């Protein structure tokens, strides 16, 4: 095993040995259960059925695990996902500095860039794991509730309205997961960047969330609708494009290129700030 993988195993062991790492998983499970309970309410169910029937579809065919899974994912991932990714990524460097374990790492020959690369890689693994968990459990919970069936997509903010049979719906859902994980990686990079700065772990998390909330608020102000696509959270919503009948690959590639550039900038800033810091023994 190469030494990087060995170090990575240690870093992941640290990450997944902490209770706070699992808060996100637990929170999503709770939210999924809450959404399913609320969907049982007759008023809610009727509203969903009316939406489908007005579009000329048989509600029973599309009120399925895939549909409910997507509804849950769409409505929770950007807010709740942001919270837990910011918590983990905001902690990843600053918590070790605060607790004094960072100096134990820095006293070793591994350079600062190596240490940060390990932490960033561990956060990326966490982001992917959380995304897959959200998608799989949301669809599983939805299927337990409503059974297997076609996928109905209704995302007015992203301008997507579509229906697919079960096979195509499942394929689109599976395709959405890596794109969603890539979108969420921007939150991870934001949290990581602030975590490298001279601030407390809680502050790094709060600043990360503040950036995302301010971005969301500005994006939703009607006067700014002309520049909506330039907001960070709008670019992060690009993953919903995979549910359009004709997937807008070019537009999505453009949005993800922007996100990649933003992520790279955040990582470079984080590395540069961390390299310039003094750590007294």
């Amino acid at each position, binding site marked *: 095993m190469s030494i990087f993988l060995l170090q990575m195993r240690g870093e992941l062991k640290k990450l997944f040995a902490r209770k706070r790492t699992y808060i996100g998983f637990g929170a999503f499970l709770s939210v999924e259960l809450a959404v399913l309970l609320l969907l049982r309410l007759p008023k809610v169910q009727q509203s969903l059925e009316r939406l489908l029937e007005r579009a000329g579809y048989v509600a029973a065919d599309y009120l399925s695990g895939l549909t409910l899974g997507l509804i849950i994912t769409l409505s929770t991932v950007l807010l709740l996902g942001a919270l837990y990714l910011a918590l983990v990524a905001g902690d990843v460097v600053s918590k070790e500095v605060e607790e004094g374990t960072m100096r134990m*790492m820095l006293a070793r020959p591994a350079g600062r860039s190596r240490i940060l690369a390990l932490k960033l890689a561990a956060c990326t693994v966490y982001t992917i794991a959380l995304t897959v968990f959200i998608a799989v459990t949301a669809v599983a919970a939805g299927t337990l509730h409503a059974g297997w069936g076609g996928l109905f997509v209704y995302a007015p903010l992203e301008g997507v309205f579509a229906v697919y049979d079960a096979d195509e719906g499942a394929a689109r859902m599976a395709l959405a997961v890596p794109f969603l994980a890539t979108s969420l990686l921007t939150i991870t990079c934001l949290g990581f960047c602030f975590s490298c700065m001279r601030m407390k772990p809680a502050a790094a998390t709060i600043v990360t969330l503040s950036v995302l909330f301010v971005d969301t608020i500005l994006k939703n102000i009607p006067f700014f609708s002309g520049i909506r696509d330039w907001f960070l959270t709008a670019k992060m919503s690009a993953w919903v494009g995979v549910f359009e009948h004709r997937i807008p690959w070019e537009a999505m590639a453009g949005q993800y290129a922007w996100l990649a550039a933003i992520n790279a900038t955040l990582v470079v800033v984080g590395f540069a700030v961390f390299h310039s810091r003094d750590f007294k023994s």
Partner: protein
Amino acid sequence: MTPPAIRVQNLRKSFAGRPAVHDLSFEVRQGEIFGLLGHNGAGKSTTFGMLLGMVAPDGGDAFIGSHSVRTERGAALAKVGAIFETPCFYDYLSGWDNLAFLVSLSGAKPADSRLREVAANAGLQDRIHDKVRTYSHGMRQRLGLAQALLPGQEVLLLDEPTDGLDPQGIQEMRATIRDLRDRKGMTVLLSSHLLAEVEQLCDRVAILHQGRLLFCGEWRRSTSRWRITGEPDGAVRSRLEQSGLVPVGDAWEAPEDFHPGETVAALVAAGIRVTSVQSVTRTLEDFYLETIRS
């Protein structure tokens, strides 16, 4: 001639314009236990930080063996282990996992047999798979020493290694440090507030005060105090001073290399008798305070 294990050369560091270390130079020889002394804020921690590449110096350099910490940090620290005042570990991992992770950062794959050996030497063999949060302070300190010895370190930087230990723990730590030097030939740079500890371990020390080096070398000197009858006149007095005798209270203190023959003859010729000669052994605390006050 064997090159020094650690060489600090004109190191300088300021924080927000306030000098923390000013043009510091000293050498630690291979296989010696060297003490770094100073009040709080004297610059010891900053010096340790610069030796480990955690603090970027404003000028100068530190070398471990022949490697510059500034330009070849990885090679310089490859054989260096460090213990800090309060060793901090991942409380939610076992002692074993902590050791394995920290060793991996040295670029080495930790062999289980080596980890077991070091854990046993630290007296942690029965608890090494327990979570560190269940360890006492003394056990953490011993785990700190264990990680500093892995994978196969030759130079140890110990910042207050006995901090918070009970008398038995202090004695054990002292014995371990001495044993590492005597049996494994390790070089130890030790910083401690407990001068009695340093006194028992170190023949050579560096004393820092407000970031400046006041003294570096062998502190242990045997002197003797000579008491004489009467008051020596100008010529005899200058003779005594030329011989290296220094007036201390009602006596004269003679250095270790004092040759009494001619001086005693001069005293006798002047009608002065030597009434007593008392050998004086200075403690490190005396020496430290004298140096700081001077």
